[in-house]
């Protein structure tokens, strides 16, 4: 943290960057919030550590419009989101100075964050410089990422339905999952747009709960980097990432391995095709109908 802070201060001092997008110390060890620092005095409250679970990429969409460069601290998984935003022209690379910050797994009061338990790796997809340590490079549990999805797949349709009804019925439509998602960057979300025909504001019936989460997941299909923020922020503890991961798993299996946020502005699985693609009927042929 000291190294990052020192580097940020020097970049602020020499005018390379106009501001720093990082984290600010709060009330206790787990309380830190994303914050913007524009001078040395403000940097006094800068913090980076195991409390920095939030993905700052999303803020870059807004911050990219500010004048001058913004320094942003991104963890390895956050850089995937940032790069995906680059692909979608939602951020300008030149507007940011990216410090890739090493990460040993982020925590909250209950221990290691769920998203960190299925860490996708320690490589940075985009950066100007990397500041990390040996222990930050240690590999983690990538291979377990699909375990829970598989568990659900192996249930019967009725069990799956019951499972998701149980989970989704708790949804209060606070939109935290949508608003935190770095892939959900629509200027106007279809759910807020009276012209879209699907505008809705409350989980009035179980259909609306389903609808919101189906469309939310579908809209980010192929663009979701599996950063896990949706589940982290859900005040109702709904495992939303399991919906996204299912789509990722299917796309990998049917259309070849793909990780959003890598590559060079390539097409996502849903904006490309091959003539030999599986027919939709393949869904009907799977077990556990």
């Amino acid at each position: 943290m000291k190294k990052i802070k020192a580097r940020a201060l020097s970049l602020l001092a020499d005018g390379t960057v106009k501001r720093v997008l990082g984290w600010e110390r709060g009330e206790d060890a787990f309380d830190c919030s994303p914050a913007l620092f524009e001078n040395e005095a403000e940097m006094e409250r800068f913090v980076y550590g195991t409390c920095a679970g939030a993905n700052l990429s999303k803020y870059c969409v807004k911050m990219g419009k500010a004048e001058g460069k913004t320094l942003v601290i991104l963890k390895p998984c956050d850089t995937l989101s940032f790069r995906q935003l680059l692909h979608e022209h939602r951020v300008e690379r030149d507007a940011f100075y990216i410090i890739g910050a090493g990460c040993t797994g982020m925590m909250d009061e209950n221990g290691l964050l769920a998203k960190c338990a299925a860490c996708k790796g320690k490589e940075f997809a985009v950066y100007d410089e990397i500041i990390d340590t040996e222990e930050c490079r240690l590999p983690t549990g990538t291979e377990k990422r699909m375990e829970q999805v598989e568990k659900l797949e192996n249930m019967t349709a009725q069990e799956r339905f019951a499972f998701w009804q149980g989970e989704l019925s708790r949804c209060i439509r606070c939109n935290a999952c949508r608003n935190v998602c770095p892939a959900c960057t629509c200027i106007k979300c279809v759910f807020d747009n009276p012209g879209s025909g699907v505008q809705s504001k409350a989980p009035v019936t179980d259909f609306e709960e389903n609808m919101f989460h189906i469309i939310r997941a579908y809209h980010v299909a192929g663009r979701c980097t599996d950063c896990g923020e949706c589940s982290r922020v859900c005040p109702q503890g709904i495992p939303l990432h399991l919906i996204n991961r299912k789509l990722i798993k299917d796309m990998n299996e049917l259309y070849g391995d793909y990780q959003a946020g890598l590559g060079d502005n390539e097409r996502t699985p849903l904006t490309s095709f091959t003539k030999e693609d599986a027919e939709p009927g393949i869904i009907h042929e799977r077990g556990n109908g």
Partner: protein
Amino acid sequence: MSVSNTGWTPKIVAFCCNWCSYAGADLAGSGRMQYPADVKIIRVPCSCRVNPLFILRAFERGADGVIICGCHPGDCHYTSGNYYARRRMTMLFSLLDYLGIERGRTRVEWVSAAEGAKFAKTMNEFVETVYTLGENRKLRDIRCRK
């Protein structure tokens, strides 16, 4: 029309691309090939025009089955539309299945303008499948019931 003991008849929405499947449906008509009146067709320019929102909308409104028909892969009037549709629908159907919605309520079938018989056969089969599944209860908005 299939009618159950309770008087329930399935509601089936069929999205047909203008160039192949809608023409195929017309051909089925010209050939006087019977299929249940439960099927109502919506004409779209291409299967790639079918937004997942439309499918969910149909279910919301009480449809019991939704079928999307397009040109055979390789024959799309717009060259690639049905290839995109194929991926989109595969992913959507998989997601619905994952959430526990009956698979049989959704289907994609490629029907060319020459395949009137296939169109009729497909519709007969699909209605039969949906009929067996019964009323759509998992993915409809109860407010839309009379």
